């Protein structure tokens, strides 16, 4: 599986994502500067966490307008797999590639801690190596992770099996609607999630619950 990580100005989990990808795919991902207009030939694009453009105006808003995002969008429509983590999820919603928005956390504070998640869907290239209903722990680290969409959209997401990760009951760190932590696009090839799977791929860091996500991709896309 060939992968690429997009680097926006002030992305800051680009290296973490690259390390996890290299560890689990055996290949170094291509690092793509936001100003480039075309992606290299890859099977997976990761939009990493961070504070693209300082999170000024709205998180992800300016990054969504980056030149590279046009190509990401076009290729995603043709089926390219795209994984947006944290800030990357925000970019995906701002770019209109996923529905809804990520608003300020309900408690209005940045929150960094491990959270328990339930894997709701295993019918995706991102989660096939998890068990349905499996409880995993990923850290979150964000100020704007409060997923919000109108009721019709939320119903559609649930109805189409596109809510992939949900915060375990009682462990919702940001007030997001229906405890949503991660969702798929309609074609199921774009995943956005707030928690950081790339930070739990190494036992020394307190867990390996993120590994199956990357292993799923390797299996699905190789």
């Amino acid at each position: 599986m060939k992968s690429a990580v997009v680097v926006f100005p002030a992305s800051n989990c680009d290296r973490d994502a690259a390390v996890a990808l290299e560890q689990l795919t055996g290949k170094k991902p291509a690092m793509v500067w936001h100003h480039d207009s075309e992606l290299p030939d890859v099977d997976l694009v990761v939009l990493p966490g961070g504070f693209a453009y300082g999170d000024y105006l709205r998180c992800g808003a300016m990054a969504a307008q980056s030149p590279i995002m046009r190509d990401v969008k076009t290729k995603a429509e043709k089926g390219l797999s795209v994984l947006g983590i944290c800030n990357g999820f925000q970019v995906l919603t701002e770019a209109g590639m996923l529905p809804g928005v990520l608003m300020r956390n309900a408690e209005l504070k940045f929150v960094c801690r491990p959270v328990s998640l339930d894997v709701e869907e295993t019918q995706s290239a991102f989660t096939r190596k998890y068990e349905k209903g499996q409880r995993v722990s990923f850290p979150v680290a964000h100020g704007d992770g409060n997923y919000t969409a109108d009721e019709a959209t939320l119903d559609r997401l649930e109805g189409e099996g596109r809510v992939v990760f949900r915060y375990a009951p009682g462990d919702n760190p940001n007030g997001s609607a229906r405890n949503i932590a991660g969702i798929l696009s309609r074609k199921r090839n774009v995943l956005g999630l707030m928690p950081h799977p790339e930070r739990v791929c190494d036992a020394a860091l307190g867990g390996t619950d993120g590994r199956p996500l990357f292993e799923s991709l390797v299996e699905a896309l190789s």
Partner: protein
Amino acid sequence: MKARVFVTLKNGVLDPQGKAIGHALHGLGFRAVGEVRQGKVIDIELAERDEAKARAIVKEMCEKLLANTVIEKYEIELDG
């Protein structure tokens, strides 16, 4: 020409920041406070003299970048 853009949450969208401000104002003893909503104001200097053209440009800016129209609405004021 100067443009002032207000970006505020659409009615019905929950505004935790506005709520927190209202709460804090009550806490400070301002009993007369009802609902509070918070938004953004963006002041833009524009090298464009024609009002209609300026409005069209700013509207485009709002649609493309300044507002997220899924949850936000905007108003434009021009001056100069």
